[in-house]
Every structure is written in structure tokens, then in C-alpha cells.
């Protein structure tokens, strides 16, 4: 069997492409479980299409487990891993990982202020469901550090690279189609989205990388994922670009854990700041959330919270804005930034292969570059381009149906991420991580985020959005007039 077919890069592309293609078949993944923020445990998990698949949440989780176990064990067999150890290990990995994902959605942990009423609880830590990633990481750290023999035994199934790269390929398909989903909003804020891309990739990244390398003395391996985590989209960016520069898996995952923690702080502080200082500039505030708050969940939650704050202030003065206008802006800015993670990973992969890992005095043979190049990025780029082009060609109804299917498929991406976090936590030695300077990592993160990224993001948001107001909601016609008609 050819060696390329036995690589995790290849299997990540195969797995990711298969998930996306199956997702395009209507309701093919309607049975896949989705975790909701919950207070009643019985309401925590349900199929993504409960009207089509009226099965209990637990059964849909079981289906998901069996499907993943079967396919991944086959892949592990092709790659030459021990089938028995992989299958048993994956069972444990899935049980713990998915358990953490569900627990992370517990209302008192995940609940953000805009969702507390719906959950019927007075308070919540506001960590969003992405707290599940942190719990998975923490669980992995406990297993790896306090039960090292168990961790060693599970190592066969902890295929970090495979899981990470599969998730990234799935992201390519999902975002490719999503880019065609908001035609009007996309037209209106195209320039703002482009500005966000320029800002995040060309300015934030470069400044944070320079700070990490020159001031804090980080190695390239740490500085690149760190710069990506702070500058771009947090978790996805750190992991994708970490793979592009061939950083050890532990590096982007530790950066990602910081991203999630800091995004919580941002989620609390930035909407409050916007309420105090930007109540007359709603669209500046909305774009600022998309530019400054890391992780999609936290950014979009921040947009929603900020909208509720600013709309309520405006309503006191008799102005009622169209609902969701700010939240849509935040989401679009964030999605625009997300879209270019793969492109930036390709850029960094080329710079690293040609300019940094290249040996002096030697040419760089194509074969060598190809060997170093993270090939899963092609899976991301090709899938993104294909879905984008298809989305432009098909009818609105078909695109909507495809989008729904891909949102179902996106649940796999979340599962692969949570498996990744658990697997890497399990492989991380805490003492070793301390030696590698996690405290210093947090310091450079805090300085970059609160000293530069937030303020520059505010400046650019103001430049592009000041004076722009959300459309006002159409007033409801008096009942008498309606009856008169």
C-alpha cells in the first residue's frame, strides 16, 4: 500500500471530505446529536433534525459513536495501527470527550447573560458551550498526569493530528458554503470584512509575532501559533497554523486553552465597555466584537449581548432598531476572518518551508517541500472553493438545504475538536509545560490582547463604521387601521 495513503494527512482529508459530502445529502446526518445548553440533563442532547429522526438524544449519541468507531478503526487499520487497542481506546476517548462536551454546556457553566432567561437560571459563568473543550483538556491532563499507565495505554487511539486536521477540513466545507449565504449583508459590509482580514492577518499577527519573538524570546514554534491564536480566530487558527509550521501538537492546544480563557474575559468586559462608550455607535460596537473577541462562540455571543445592551439604551430614547442587525454584523466580520485561516496557513507553510526550515546553501527540492507541507490544507482550500462555487450556482432553496445539511455535518467537527483536546491533554506533562513557560505565554497573550488587539480593533471599527446605524424597525400599524383594511 502506498505510503501517502497510510498518512494521517490523507486520512484527515478522506474523513473530512466524506463528512462534508454526506452532509450535502438532505437529512443524511439528521440523526447526529447536537448538544444544547441545558439545566435538565434529559434536554442536553437531541438529534439535529428531531422532526425527521424522532429518537432519544442518547440513541443518536450511540449512533454517532458506532459510525465514528467503525470508520476510524478502518482508517487506523489501513495506517497500520493496532485495531484492538485503537477500538478500545477510542471508546474511552469518545466517552470521556463527549461527556466533557455535554458537561461544558451545563447552563451554570455555559450560560451567557442573553440566554439565562431562556435557561431559567439566575446566573451563569458565561463560558459558552466551548467550555467543553476546556473540560476535555483538563480531563486529559488528569489522565495523563495522574494515571500515566492509562494514558500510555490509550495513546494508540489518541491520534491528535488526524482529529485536528479532519476538523479543519470540515471547516473548509462548512464555511465555503456559508460565505454565499448572506448576499445583502455580505455586500454591505464587504469592505469591513476585508478590513478585518487585513487587520487580523497582516497587522495583528505580525505585531504579536514580533512581540513574542523579540520581547519575550519565544521560539518560532511557540510564537507562530500564539500569534495566530491572539490575532485571528483563536482555537481554529492556532491549531491550523500550528500544523502549517509543524509545531508539536501540544503547542497550539495550550495556546487554544488560553484563547478560550481570555475569550471569556472579553465576553464579559467588552460588551460592558460598548454599553458605556459606544451606545451611539452600534455598528462600531458590533464590528469591534467580531474583530476583538476570539473564538466564534464568544464573539457571536458578545455581539448578541452588546446588541441587547445598546438596543435597550436606544429604546429608552424611542429608537427601535431592526433585531439582529448588530449580531449579523459581528457574525459576518467573524466569518470573514475565519475564511482566510486556510489561506494564511498556506502562506505560513510556504514561508516556513522556503525561508525558515531551508538549510543554508542548499536548494529546496520540491519533494522536501511537499514532505513538509501540511497537505490537509489542500483539503480545506479545495473543499472551501468547491462549496463556494456550488453555493453561487444553485438556487436559494437548494443552498439553504445544503447549508442545513452542513450544519448537521459540523457537529462532527465539534466532536473531532473535543477528541483532540482530550487526547492532547492526555499527552501533556504538566511539569514539562510549566518548564516551557505557560505563564510567560499567558503574559504575552494578555499584553497583546489588552494592550494592542482590542484597541486597534476599536480604531479600525470606528474608522469603517462610525455614523452607520442599524436600520430602524418598522413600527407596527395600529390595530384599528388593520381592521379597517
Amino acid at each position, binding site marked *: 500500500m502506498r505510503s501517502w495513503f497510510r498518512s494521517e494527512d490523507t486520512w484527515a482529508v478522506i474523513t473530512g471530505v466524506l463528512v462534508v459530502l454526506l452532509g450535502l445529502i438532505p437529512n443524511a446526518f439528521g440523526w447526529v446529536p447536537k448538544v444544547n445548553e441545558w439545566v435538565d440533563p434529559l434536554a442536553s442532547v437531541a438529534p439535529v433534525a428531531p422532526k425527521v429522526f424522532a429518537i432519544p438524544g442518547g440513541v443518536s449519541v450511540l449512533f454517532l459513536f458506532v459510525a465514528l468507531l467503525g470508520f476510524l478503526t478502518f482508517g487506523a487499520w489501513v495506517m497500520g495501527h493496532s485495531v484492538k487497542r485503537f477500538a478500545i481506546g477510542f471508546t474511552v476517548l469518545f466517552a470521556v470527550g463527549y461527556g466533557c462536551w455535554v458537561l461544558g454546556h451545563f447552563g451554570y457553566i455555559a450560560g451567557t447573560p442573553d440566554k439565562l432567561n431562556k435557561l431559567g437560571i439566575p446566573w451563569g459563568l458565561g463560558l459558552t458551550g466551548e467550555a467543553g473543550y476546556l473540560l476535555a483538556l483538563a480531563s486529559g491532563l488528569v489522565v495523563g498526569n495522574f494515571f500515566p499507565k492509562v494514558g500510555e495505554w490509550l495513546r494508540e487511539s489518541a491520534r491528535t493530528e488526524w482529529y485536528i486536521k479532519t476538523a479543519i477540513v470540515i471547516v473548509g466545507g462548512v464555511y465555503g458554503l456559508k460565505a454565499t449565504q448572506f448576499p445583502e449583508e455580505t455586500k454591505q459590509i464587504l*469592505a469591513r470584512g476585508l*478590513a478585518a482580514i487585513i487587520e487580523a492577518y497582516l*497587522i495583528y499577527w505580525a505585531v504579536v509575532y514580533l512581540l513574542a519573538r523579540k520581547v519575550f524570546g519565544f521560539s518560532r514554534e511557540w510564537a507562530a501559533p500564539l500569534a495566530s491564536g491572539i490575532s485571528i480566530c483563536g482555537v481554529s487558527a492556532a491549531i491550523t497554523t500550528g500544523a502549517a509550521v509543524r509545531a*508539536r501538537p501540544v503547542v497550539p492546544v495550550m495556546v487554544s486553552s488560553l484563547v478560550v480563557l481570555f475569550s471569556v474575559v472579553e465576553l464579559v468586559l467588552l460588551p460592558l465597555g460598548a454599553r458605556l462608550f459606544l451606545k451611539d455607535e452600534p455598528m462600531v460596537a458590533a464590528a469591534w466584537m467580531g474583530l476583538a473577541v476570539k473564538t466564534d462562540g464568544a464573539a457571536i455571543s458578545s455581539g448578541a449581548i452588546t446588541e441587547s445592551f445598546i438596543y435597550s439604551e436606544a429604546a429608552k430614547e424611542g429608537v427601535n432598531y431592526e433585531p439582529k442587525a448588530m449580531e449579523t454584523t459581528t457574525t459576518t466580520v467573524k466569518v470573514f476572518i475565519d475564511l482566510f485561516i486556510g489561506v494564511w496557513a498556506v502562506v505560513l507553510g510556504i514561508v516556513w518551508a522556503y*525561508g*525558515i526550515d531551508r538549510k543554508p546553501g542548499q536548494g529546496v527540492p520540491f519533494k522536501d517541500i511537499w514532505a513538509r507541507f501540511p497537505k490537509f490544507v489542500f483539503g480545506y482550500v479545495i473543499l472551501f472553493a468547491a462549496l463556494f462555487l456550488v453555493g453561487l450556482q444553485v438556487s436559494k432553496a437548494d443552498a439553504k438545504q445544503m447549508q442545513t445539511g452542513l450544519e448537521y455535518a459540523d457537529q462532527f467537527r465539534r466532536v473531532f475538536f473535543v477528541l483532540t483536546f482530550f487526547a492532547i491533554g492526555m499527552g501533556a506533562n504538566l511539569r*514539562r509545560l510549566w518548564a516551557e513557560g505557560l505563564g510567560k505565554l499567558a503574559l504575552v497573550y494578555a499584553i497583546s490582547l489588552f494592550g494592542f488587539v482590542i484597541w486597534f480593533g476599536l480604531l479600525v471599527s470606528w474608522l*469603517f463604521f462610525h455614523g452607520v446605524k442599524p436600520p430602524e424597525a418598522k413600527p407596527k400599524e395600529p390595530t384599528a387601521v388593520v381592521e379597517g383594511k
Partner: protein
Amino acid sequence: MSADKPTDATTAEEMAKQQAEPLLPAEKWLIFGSITLGLVLLGLLLWLTGAL
């Protein structure tokens, strides 16, 4: 990558004796090229959208 993963002891040793990595020309090009291009493009975009 995992096959080449060093042991904890090896990594700790490597980290301890790790020397500062000077900025390579490729890194300088990446950093300053990015910032310059970013500022120029932001200005151009502002001009194009008539925001200035």
C-alpha cells in the same frame, strides 16, 4: 510527527539549553512586509469606501 516526538526528558533538556533564536530574514520580511502591506491596504480600502 508523533513518531518523532521526543521524550519528556529530552524535550526538557532541549528547552533548558535552548538559545535565543534570532529573527531570520524570512521572518523580518514576513513581519514588516505584513505590517506595511496591511497599513497600505487598510488606507486603500478606507479611500475606496469613502470612509475618510
